[in-house]
């Protein structure tokens, strides 16, 4: 850290941290630790943006089916047009001001692009062109091919990925859920020990009554992670052999990892 930085930093803090009494300050500090700290006005405007964007949740469902028929096109396009605010990264990523090199996103296709095309053609052959909501290369995550399934096709897609000889993703590396305010999302990271490929499978589910078919029949290892997602996010996995609140216990109220969760006792 250079001296300049330091002095700037201290100056700015001086101005806003000045004459508060101790209690006020502590309160402020508490606030500063909440998800979106930083200058209050900026933060507000960001939230507003998020709110306005999220007001039309129908947006994601409209455009894609046509795009799916052409896998190559689908890989580039849907991500930029059809995501809701918290995860519309590819869109922002490709804007020149952001950090990840823009020329990469624009020009050369990712080294994993052929793989993704192969997966897409297999899935299309077996499950039709409507099975996936989107498919793209996630450049931020070491170029992992990412498939987004519909909630009603999720199990079919997973099953195909698990058993199709050219795919055979026989290892579940990770399963977890995310609360994206407008909807929930379940993320699976799969690995094939036969072909040494990795793949991310995502599925969006509604937030009010999140339900999803379990994949424990495909990967036993999904058992506890699904319990974890149920415990912390309230995602109900249908046909799960033993869905329980694995960490917090059955009597716990609320689902802590939901963004609107309120702790029972603030002090703890």
């Amino acid at each position, binding site marked *: 850290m250079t001296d300049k930085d330091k002095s700037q930093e201290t100056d700015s803090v001086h101005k806003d941290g000045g004459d508060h009494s101790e209690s006020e300050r502590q309160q402020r500090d508490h606030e500063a630790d909440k998800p979106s700290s930083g200058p209050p006005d900026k933060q507000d405007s960001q939230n507003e943006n998020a709110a306005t964007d999220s007001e039309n949740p129908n947006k994601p469902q409209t455009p894609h089916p046509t795009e799916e028929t052409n896998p190559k096109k689908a890989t580039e396009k849907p991500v930029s047009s059809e995501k809701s605010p918290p995860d519309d990264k590819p869109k922002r990523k490709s804007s020149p001001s952001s950090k990840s090199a823009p020329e990469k996103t624009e020009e050369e296709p990712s080294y994993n692009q052929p793989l993704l095309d192969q997966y897409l053609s297999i899935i299309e052959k077996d499950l039709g062109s409507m099975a996936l909501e989107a498919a793209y290369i996630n450049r931020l995550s070491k170029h992992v091919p990412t498939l987004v399934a519909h909630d009603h096709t999720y199990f079919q897609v997973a099953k195909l990925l698990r058993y199709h000889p050219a795919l055979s993703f026989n290892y579940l590396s990770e399963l977890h859920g*995310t609360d994206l305010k407008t909807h929930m999302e379940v993320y699976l990271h799969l690995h094939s020990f036969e072909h040494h490929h990795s793949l991310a499978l995502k599925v969006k589910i509604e937030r009010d009554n999140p339900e999803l078919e379990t994949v424990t029949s495909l990967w036993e290892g999904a058992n506890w992670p699904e319990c974890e997602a149920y415990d912390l996010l309230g995602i109900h996995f249908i046909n799960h052999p033993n869905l329980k609140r694995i960490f917090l216990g059955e009597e716990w109220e609320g689902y802590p990892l939901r963004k609107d969760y309120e702790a029972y006792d603030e002090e703890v």
Partner: protein
Amino acid sequence: MLRTEEMLLNVGPQHPSTHGVFRLVIKIDGEIIKEATPVIGYLHRGTEKLAEDLTYTQIIPYTDRMDYLAAMTNNYVLCHAVETMMGVELPDYAEYLRVLAMELGRIASHLVWFGTYLLDIGAVSPFLYAFRERERIINLLNELSGGRLTFNYMRVGGVKWDAPGGWFDRVQEFVPYMREQLAGYHDLVGGNEIFLSRVKGVGVYSQETALQYSLSGANLRCTGVDWDLRKHEPYSLYERFDFKVITGETGDAWDRFKCRMGEIEESLKIIEQTFDQMPAEGKTMAKVPRMIKAPPGEAYVRIESPRGEIGCYINSDGKKEPYRMKFRRPSFYNLQILPKLLEGENMANLITILGGVDIVLGEVDG
């Protein structure tokens, strides 16, 4: 034929062999386990929820507390995830320091496992020897980072400290010393008939089962799966090192023992090679902005921790805090197979099997 009655037995949550707070409810019929139900969550601290309110730098000390026996790898997985998203290239020197620290941590972690595993089975002296060696590593890492277990050593873009004066020499001295002790360990227990009869053929599972249950690390390699993320999905500088992936054949507790002991030896090799390759000096930090912000998007990275595949998922909305953070904690996944392994086993094998899985409860509960 004696008529026996089923009995419910609680093992834990405070039980010396669980090395933490882990409860196992088992139904036994005489000496035979009919059903085992693991109960976890006693050490759940909500790291992922806490992380949503913290900046990336502030999360690093929290990762120390997940797998507290190998905190360096936890530090690394978080920094690696953020660096992957930001596209930060680390200076070689910093990466070598990280590799050194991680491999030392791996040895320390396996030593704890070795000592406590044998202690559980009934051998007391290996525990003392293993902790003697571990103490040396802990001291080395203490000199490097200022903490004995909770290192908080890595930062996004590099490491906090350069090595102190004379530290490299002390590490170099440690390698042959550890080799000698390792040979001693094999003398001490490797040929011990009592130990062998306790572990051979116990807790066997097949390759398919291991993959099906998402096992990783030595628990997966003991079945013969040649899989080590350092080798097969190289991160950091592991491509530059020549080391073997130790695999077993039968997938029993004895193979898991051999895998972990072999990994200590491989880690020593990596440490030696680090000294051959490492530049004499260099920068410890890459150029990163003062306020670390991951670009909007999501990323999942995974690396090889002593216990298996540790992963970190970040969903960022471009702020200085992650929107959602998730750690794939290997012990949590590895423990899932326990009820299956215990079913129909003799009561005396419970400890052998549980110990063989090598769990750290801080990691199981997150």
